[in-house]
């Protein structure tokens, strides 16, 4: 029982950590001279780094907002899980925790989809997707599965 609990919490925390890294590190696009998005464009010029703010278009701001919201909801889900662990009756399901975690995964999914569809407008074709983008896509199924587990799980003594 304790092992199961530990496993579930670890999965949740792993998804949360991936979300944090994906949001904070500005490496959604990478080219041979630098990385850019979500927050800054950093390029290597003459041996030194030079960072500007990322383009201030509407779509990049929407992606920023969705990633931050997904982090907020995932943190709330973790907090609510511990609350429900101690207050739920025997046999009850962690509905609220699961809902919040599933909503967080939906936010990551929409953020990543918006970025995929809209980034060709400001990113040249020669640039590839960076590792933050990949982490965002990886954290989406992790958060979704974690949320579904919460919804299915029943509290035992």
């Amino acid at each position, binding site marked *: 029982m304790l092992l199961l609990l530990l496993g579930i919490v670890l999965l949740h925390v792993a998804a949360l950590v991936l979300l944090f890294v994906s949001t904070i590190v500005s490496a959604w696009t990478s080219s041979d001279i630098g990385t850019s998005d979500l927050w800054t464009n950093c390029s290597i010029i003459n041996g030194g780094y030079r960072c500007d703010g990322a383009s*201030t278009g509407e779509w990049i*701001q*929407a992606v920023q907002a969705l990633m931050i*919201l997904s982090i907020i909801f995932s943190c709330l889900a973790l907090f609510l899980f511990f609350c429900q662990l101690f207050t739920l009756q025997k046999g009850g399901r962690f509905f609220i925790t699961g809902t919040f975690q599933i909503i967080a995964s939906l936010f990551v999914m929409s953020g990543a989809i918006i970025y995929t569809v809209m980034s060709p407008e400001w990113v040249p074709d020669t640039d590839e997707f960076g590792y933050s983008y990949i982490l965002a896509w990886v954290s989406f199924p992790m958060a979704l599965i974690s949320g579904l587990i919460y919804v299915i799980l029943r509290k035992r003594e």
Partner: protein
Amino acid sequence: MLTLVALASLLVLATVPEPSQAIVIYTGWERHALVGTEVRLSCSFFSWRWTSEDVTFSWTYRPDGARDSISIFHYTGGMAYVDNKGPFRDRLEFVGDPGRRDGSILLKNLEFSDNGTFTCDAKNPPDIVGRPSSVRLLVFEKVPIQAGVITGSIIGAVLGLLLLIVVIYYLMRFLVARRVFSLNVSKHGKKKKEGSQQRQGPAPAVDTAKPKTSEKKKQESRKDRK
């Protein structure tokens, strides 16, 4: 001890600068404007002296990427002299009030070539030592949205919605609980009345049977509530 305090206070007083004679000039940091519209570049100054009659304002312009700046405006001796040969001829207007320490100019019909740095230099004799202040003009075809406006509004809207749902949920629970409680109270009151009426029933034969059932009912209801 006392001498130490005296020495320290003397040191502090010595390092406090007396009202400096430097003039401080304020302009904006950056100005954004659409092509074809007009923009007001404001310039004002702070000086410890009263505004003298010989106050002067002068504006110079340095295009983006150029090294030299040209003079485009000068106010002195109560007269304003605007650019009549340079890039701003017929597009520059003086809208400031030197008496109120305001040396602002108005640029009309902006073009893309007006992108650059505008420097304002003001002198208030005898207060003439000061650093000119610069404002950057950015001319856009379409004014871009500031960074973070949409981000903040999306986050605020979703969190506000969440808060609203939570508040409504707790409100509904509270209201429903109150209604259920008042319903329970009225039911309990009715049952009591019925029980007492049956006890005072007319026929004694029926009397022996009915009180038992009413008592049974009462006991059952007591058990339920427990």
